[in-house]
Structures are given as structure tokens and as C-alpha cells.
């Protein structure tokens, strides 16, 4: 289960917005004291102020993080630029992981693009280093679904612990799915056992066992390949 950072409502309540909210409520209360249809003016103004000056900026900040722009379009552009900058920095690293986890290069590319798209959509608030872990998590989930889909399509329902990777040329193809995910995320993405466990919904102990098994298999593989 890929976890997103918690939404921080309180941080969006800036002093300016609080003042505007108080003014809006005051206008609504004042409108209540005005007789008949004339009350529509202050009440409407108060509610509109509350919506436009307090609620909508707060929602925008929760969704996109702090932005110097008041308008929506520039704020979206700022957000896009910020995400692009971060993803660009992580791109090489992410592509390695994607191709190490998936033998089919085309599939790995598609799944990575989907993971970026979903992360862009789901990530709320300021961009932190945790975005990389989240994107990897989304990728692993998409890969798992893809492998399941492949298995069900091919009628192979033997796997119990997780989707089997296809036998390809990569030495990692000899590992089970869980072992491969554990070793790639640990060795190449530098994630801790705890992070991998949280990402794959598995106990840390099992992840550790998968890592040990993967290390053993890859070492044996290296020895075999080192023979003349």
C-alpha cells in the first residue's frame, strides 16, 4: 500500500485567510440583521469572500503546495515545473529500477510513465524526497497487477506468493517476484528493509528472508558465471 503524506489543513490556515474568514462571517452575520431581500447582499458577499478568498486558496494549497501565484493556471504551471524538476533528477535512477524489475523493456517504460502520472495526480502539498519512494511504490504495484494480468491471460495460476517474473535473459529472472523486488529496491534504489516491507505490504522479516535468499542466489549465479 503506497502511503501519501498526510494533508495538512492547519498549515493552509494563514493569518490572512483567518482574517478574511472572520470578515466573511461578520458580513454574513450583518446580513442576517438586514431585513428581507436586502440581506442577500452582505450574506452573498460574505459567503463569496469565504469561498474565493479562503476556501479555494486553501484547497489549492493543500493540492499543489504553496505557490506565489493567486491564479490557478500559473499555480498549476509552477507545480508542473516543480514536479518535472524532481522527476528529471530521479529519472535515471527510476529507469534503472524499472528495467531491473521488469524484463520486458517496453512494459517497464509504460509502467514507469504510468507511475509518474499517478504520482503527479496523487501527490498533495509540497514535493519532498518521499515522492521518489512513493513513485517506486506505485511502480511496484502496477508491475504486480501487470504480472497478475499476464498470468491470468496465460492461464497460469500456480503462483501463490506473488506473480512470477518471466524467464528472460536477466540473471534476476531466476529470482522469485518477491526476491527480485526486495533485492532491486534494496541494492539499486537504496531502500531500507522497513521501507520495502511497507511498500509491498509484507512483514519486514519476510522481506529480510527474501533479500537473503536473493543474495544467496545471485552469489551462486556469479560463481557459476565466473567458471570457464
Amino acid at each position, binding site marked *: 500500500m503506497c502511503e501519501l503524506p498526510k494533508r495538512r489543513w492547519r498549515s493552509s490556515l494563514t493569518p490572512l485567510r483567518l482574517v478574511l474568514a472572520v470578515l466573511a462571517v461578520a458580513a454574513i452575520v450583518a446580513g442576517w440583521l438586514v431585513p428581507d431581500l436586502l440581506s442577500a447582499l452582505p450574506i452573498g458577499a460574505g459567503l463569496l469572500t469565504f469561498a474565493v478568498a479562503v476556501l479555494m486558496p486553501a484547497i489549492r494549497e493543500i493540492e499543489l503546495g504553496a505557490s506565489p501565484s493567486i491564479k490557478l493556471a500559473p499555480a498549476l504551471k509552477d507545480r508542473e515545473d516543480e*514536479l518535472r524538476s524532481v522527476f528529471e533528477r530521479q529519472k535515471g535512477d527510476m529507469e534503472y529500477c524499472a528495467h531491473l524489475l521488469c524484463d520486458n523493456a517496453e512494459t517497464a517504460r509504460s509502467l514507469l510513465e504510468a507511475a509518474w*502520472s499517478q504520482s503527479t495526480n496523487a501527490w498533495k502539498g509540497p514535493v519532498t524526497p518521499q515522492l521518489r519512494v512513493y513513485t517506486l511504490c506505485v511502480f511496484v504495484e502496477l508491475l504486480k497487477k501487470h504480472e497478475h494480468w499476464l498470468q491470468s491471460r496465460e492461464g497460469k495460476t500456480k503462483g501463490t506468493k506473488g506473480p512470477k517474473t518471466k524467464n528472460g535473459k536477466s540473471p534476476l529472472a531466476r529470482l522469485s517476484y518477491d526476491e527480485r523486488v526486495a*533485492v532491486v529496491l534494496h541494492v*539499486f534504489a537504496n531502500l531500507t528493509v522497513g521501507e520495502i516491507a511497507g511498500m509491498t505490504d509484507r512483514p519486514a522479516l519476510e522481506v529480510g528472508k527474501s533479500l537473503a535468499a536473493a543474495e544467496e542466489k545471485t552469489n551462486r549465479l556469479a560463481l557459476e558465471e565466473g567458471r570457464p
Partner: protein
Amino acid sequence: MRDALRERLLSEAALHAKTNPADLDRALGEGMSTIRRRLVRAWVVVIVAAVLVTAGLVALRVLLDRQPAVLESIAVSAPASSLHPEAILQLSAEATYSDGSHSPLQDGVEWASDNLAVAGISADGKATAVAPGVAGLTATVDGVSGRFELTVTTPGTASLKALRITPGDAEADPGGKIQLLAEGTYSDGSLGRLNVTAIWGSRDPGIATVDGDGLVTAAAPGTAIISASQDGFEATARITVNTAPPAKISGLAIEPAELTIKQGQTHQMIAVASYTDGTTKPESSVTWSTGNPKVATISASGLVTAQGLGQVLIEAKHVDADGTEWKAQSKVTVEHAVIRVVVGPAGPHALEPGATVQLTATVTYSDGKPGKPVITWASSRPIIASVSNGLVRGGPVQGQVTITATADGVSSNGVVVSVGPTIPTQGPVKG
């Protein structure tokens, strides 16, 4: 993991990444467009919610402003403020509310008099003068009261200035009654009831009559002028007697309501309609039906024919001009019928005057069984021989008669009886 393997895996991954580079811009664009749509949706929801809440609050505010106004005062008024004893005055009450509006009060007004010895007041606000003096009449609603001061003057202290009859125009059906009121206005402004003292008369007594107290009785359609006069003043009222509305059917019955007939016999049923004017008359436009045609059938004209033993309900249905359906029922019981009566001994019989012979009648019913119905005996010439309960007695006159028996209209065979002196039969001659 050994470094060599690690390097090899990385180089393979790098090769794959180079041959299949991921398109970050496209992925980012898709994600951002989803965010854009979501935010626009949120904006729309917020604006619509703000507008709806504004509308709701304003509507609530307007509704609260329009709470019913509070009753503040009641004003009581009347056509006059002084009456002669026995005169009646209709008071009216008008409410004034906190928003400045006025409206007449109809229901829920409590009327009261603070001096019943001078004037009383009914629940509908009619004040009746009793004796000279001053009385305060109040109308109260929800604790708010209005007062009217009524003066009852001493008779004879003022002269009559005008006379009028109320109602001035009225309608009645023939036979209906209308109470008129003769009111006099006196020089001191007071009103007096003059029904008893005024002289009443009808200019069209064939249409309506009036008694000495102003009670009009409608007689025939038309318009009658009723007058009242006193002290040289005269007032009239126009009474219109309406044409009596056509009587309508108020009920339907079948005559007879119960009927017992013999098998094979017939009977004519009659449907009788009752009218609102109390009259009744046979109704021919009737649809007849039987509850069981095996017991009795009925023709379109209402002729019942008994078919089999038992009871059956015969129904008549009539639909009047208004479309109202009227129904009536009659219970018909069908009994066995006599089919044959045989008198025996068959005879002929010879009787001396005063002598008797007993005859018996055997009756056979339609179901083949014998019975004992009421039998009527008859002699063709009772002076020669009479018959009672089958006992035939020779009379003083000689001759021959035929005796018959009848049961339920079926006659028996005739038995011949001769009456006369007995002639000795010729015997052997003794030597």
C-alpha cells in the same frame, strides 16, 4: 550482490533505458490534467455551494421577517349606538395588527356584556336591548379586547323618523318561511324593533303571506311585496318564491317485497319509485334480473315465472337522469304446485233425501307426492245435494248433481250423485 553482477545488471538496465526511454513530459502532462480537472470541479462545487447557501440563508431570513403580525387592538362598531328595548343590533369587530394591517374578525371572538340587565349579546355578536340604561359590550380575542358602549333608551321619548324591513330582498321555496325584521330609526338616533307594533301585509297573498310578527310563508312561485307600516311610515320587502325544483327519486322498491308462488305460475312484479316530494309512482324504466333462473325467471316487463323449488332474489335497477343508480329486491319463494285432484269413490251414487255419502279428494303435487292442501268442495246444484268437507248430503229436491273438489286452482273429476226415493229392487215372487 557481487560488484561484477551489479555492474552487469546496471549496464543491461542502462541499455534498456536507452532503447526505450520513458517519456516524462507525457506522463507529467497526464497527471497534471487530472489535477486540473479535479481542481476545476472543486471550484465549481465551492461556488455553487456558496450560492446555494446564500440563497438558503436569504430565504430563511425573509421567512423569519414574514412571521404573522401580532394582534394589537380590536375595534367594535355597530350601525347605531342606542336601541329601544327588544331591538337587536349586529356588532362587528375589526382587528388591528402590529404591522398596521386591519381585518374583520369572524371566528373565535368572545362577546360579552357587562350589564345583562340592559343588553345581552349572543355568541355571534348580536346585541339585544333589554331595558333602558347603558351596557358595555366587549369582543375578546387572544386576550385583546375591544369595547362598545350601547345605550338603551326609554320608549316614547323620541319620535319615529324612518322604518325599514330587513332583509329587503329574500328568496324562498314554496312552503318556506322567512322572518322579516321591521326596524325603526328614532329622532334620538336610536333603533327600535317594530315587528309587533307594525302592521304587516302582503300585496300578493297568493304568492306569499305574512303574519303579525313579520313571518313570511311562501305559497306559490312569483314575487310578493311585503309591507310593514307604523306611525305613517311604510317599508317594503321583496320576497321571491322560487319554482319548486322537480322531485327527484329518493328510493326504489318492488311490490310485492316478498312473494310465494307455485311452480309453473307467473306473477307481475312492479317497481315503485319514491320521490323527494313524498310521492310514489310505478317506474317502468327498470332493468329486471333474477338471482337464480333455475328457481324463477323474470321478463323485461317484470313478469316472474316460477321454475323450480327454492328462494330467489329478484332485483330491479333504475338509473335516473342524474346517473344515480337505484336498486330494489324482492324475495320470491317457489313452492310445489298441485297437478291433479281425484275424487272418489267415482260413483255414480244414489241417495235418498237426507242421506249422506262421504267422498275423498286425493291431491298429487308436481313432485309426484301426495299432499293435503286446502280443498274446496262444490256441488253443481246444492239444492239437490250439498257437500261439505267431502260429505255429500241429499237435499229435499230430487235430481242429479255433480260434486267436484278444487285445490290450488286445479279441479277434480266430477262425481255424479242422484237424489231421490229408493226404488225397491224386484225380488222373487213368493207363492
